[in-house]
């Protein structure tokens, strides 16, 4: 029971990061593809305005995931970080470049500076979810054995499943971002941007869906156990929920109802994460290490769950306040201090 609760905590952190952190990376994707400096300016300004107050808090879900893993499942953590050192280190470098460039580009004084920092921000925003996705794909495909760097340094995360999950991570992040930004644009009364994000949301949503369907074929040949898990029982239910939520999202985007689409788009992504967990249950690192085997002793799990339970009592109201302020447009600063 305790190991499952700890695993649920890790899953919560992962979902938080994939949905909220993923949307921030998606913001970078739309920044990258917004076009020339002049044409892309309104879109980039909207992305900056929406992301600035929340990206740091959204990023903490990743740290929280790492902490839960190394405390509750230390052997699995050590095995993952050593075998998948290459993609995870590349993602870490990307996180530095993304966050650094985003925070600093606000102070850029010339077009050239803004371009350099903007390009760094945008490019690393695409690379981070891709590499983290390949790492997740490697775990799902059973490429991470227990041990200190026991799996292939490159072969473990360059298989079809890894590449697929990497691409899906980029696509879902971009889709979430387009939906969230569309809602922000609507609230700000910017109908030109609403149209721009509608097109992007529909396009990226369709792409994410197509990748997911094509992905099932890839999984069938590359990771048959995972495929079986996703096409039966709870795994199948999650996939169905995700597909349904995806379709509803597309319909809502078509009719420009972005407020509602935010929730269905998030549900579609969260259901896939849950489906992954259900598909490889009872394993944490398939094919060998189960959640129960990997779990820390009860004393540690109890302490961690108590600390996190208490922490949530503070965190949840704080997060709600932050998002309410951000959504109502009350968090933004003028570039010059008002006298």
């Amino acid at each position, binding site marked *: 029971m305790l190991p499952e609760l700890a695993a649920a905590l890790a899953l919560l952190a992962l979902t938080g990061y994939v949905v909220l952190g993923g949307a921030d990376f998606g913001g970078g994707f739309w920044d990258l593809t917004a076009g020339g400096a002049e044409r892309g300016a309104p879109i980039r300004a909207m992305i900056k305005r929406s992301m600035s107050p929340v990206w740091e808090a959204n990023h903490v879900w990743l740290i929280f995931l790492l902490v839960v893993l190394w405390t509750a499942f230390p052997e699995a953590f050590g095995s993952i970080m050593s075998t998948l050192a290459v993609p995870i280190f590349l993602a870490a470098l990307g996180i530095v470049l993304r966050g650094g460039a985003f925070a*600093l580009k606000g102070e850029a004084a010339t077009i050239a500076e803004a371009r350099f920092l903007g390009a760094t921000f945008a490019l690393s925003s695409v690379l981070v979810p891709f590499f983290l996705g390949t790492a997740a794909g490697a775990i799902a495909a059973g490429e991470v054995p227990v041990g200190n760097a026991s799996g292939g340094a490159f072969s473990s995360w360059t298989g079809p499943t890894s590449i697929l999950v990497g691409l899906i991570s980029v696509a879902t992040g971009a889709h979430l971002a387009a939906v969230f930004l569309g809602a922000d644009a609507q609230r700000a009364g910017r109908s030109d941007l609403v149209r721009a994000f509608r097109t992007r949301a529909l396009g990226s949503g369709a792409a994410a869906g197509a990748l997911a369907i094509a992905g099932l074929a890839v999984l069938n040949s590359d990771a048959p156990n995972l495929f079986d898990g996703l096409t039966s029982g709870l795994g199948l239910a999650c996939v169905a929920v995700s597909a349904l939520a995806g379709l509803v999202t597309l319909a809502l985007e078509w009719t420009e109802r972005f407020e509602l689409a935010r929730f269905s788009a998030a549900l579609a992504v969260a259901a896939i994460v849950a489906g992954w967990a259900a598909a490889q249950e009872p394993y944490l690192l398939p094919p060998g290490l189960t959640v129960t085997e990997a779990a820390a002793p009860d004393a540690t799990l109890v302490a961690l769950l108590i600390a996190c339970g208490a*922490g949530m009592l503070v965190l949840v109201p704080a*997060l709600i306040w932050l998002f309410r302020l951000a959504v109502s447009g009350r968090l933004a600063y003028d570039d010059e201090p008002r006298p």
Partner: protein
Amino acid sequence: MIDGALGGPVDQDYLLQARQMQAMSFIVHIPLVCFGIAFPAMVLFVEGLWLRTGDPLYKLLAKRWSKAMVLLFAVGVVTGTILSFEMGLLWPEFMATFGDVFGLAFGVEGFSFFIEAIFIAIYVYGWDRLPPRVHLASGVPMVIAGVTGSLMVIAVNGWMNQPTGFRIQGGEVVDIHPWKALFNDNFWHEFVHMYLAGFIVAGFLVAGVYGFGWLKGRRERHHRVALVVALTIAALAAPAQLLVGDWAARTVAVNQPVKLAAFEGLQDTTKGAPFSLAGGIEIPDLLSLLAFHDPNATVKGLNIVPAEDRPPVELVKYSFRTMVAIGSALAALGAWFLWTWWRHYRLPSSRWFYRALVAAGPLSFVALIAGWITTEVGRQPWVVYEVMRTDEAVTGAGGIPVGFVALALVYAGLVAIAAVMLRRLGRQPFHAS
């Protein structure tokens, strides 16, 4: 002996590079932690002055500082992330074997980081949009979380130096008590030492910037206010740090005698051990006095353990001296200011004071790093003191030098650009209505 949860030691040709990469990552991150500890309190203090006096100058200053604060926080977020990743990327066997012993502290730290990130955003982006009192109140969790977060990381470092809350049985870690591991013997003194260091480094660096302006003839009122606030914080913390340093050294003398012997390079166990100053001058009995508050106390020497269990003595010794020397000088500088302020209610007028102040910023950073080298290299060859060696903890993955160079290049760019942007922020005109 410990077996290691992932199967024991592996061949790693680049252990030293792994340690250096970790050290570089700390050197970039730790000064930002100092700002995370001290800057929110400084900003809130100035905003509080605004609410009390209604003087818009205080508001402008708090607002300006809060912009620098969020920029430094963002850089701290990403460099702190690198540290979290490196725990596993460089030391997977350490994490796999002991993550369940000390991980709880990081759980609490994770929530602190969440709270800090949330409220720093509300605070910085909420200027003029939240009612003034609500805005001030939104800064309070940011201050508290900045402290609890660093406290938890320090708790883990204290545990690595004084591992408690578990037993080794047949090479396995058993009988884990995570709360005991969290509240280890080093918890309080390491925390207070780092907390004061945060105020000293952030205070002197900020004061040094305004001191530089002062030398160039800047005497506007906002300049003076900023200087006095930053300087007061640093000046109060620096003398107090001497007392905390004494407390820390005495704890090390009891818990880690080999580390203490490395501070002085003391080979043999000595009754009434001397302390040597620069230039070969040796003061009899001083080390015994410092370590045990008794000139006749016996101080254990390095040779109580075999050579392979000793830290690199010279590096530890000179780092320790650097820290103590700079710390003492900063305390003297702080005392100079406090004395002048108390006696005459004005800033010191000597240009030498401001020259010293400009030097004090970078020097306090050097002392901070020297202090961390003292405790971290002084712990070598152990990652978990007398339980697990760094060569048993290191990753079996290849490519450490490549990663090291890549990260060094990225950090060089990050630090350079952040410095340019901060300088630009500082040069923006200060609109006082």
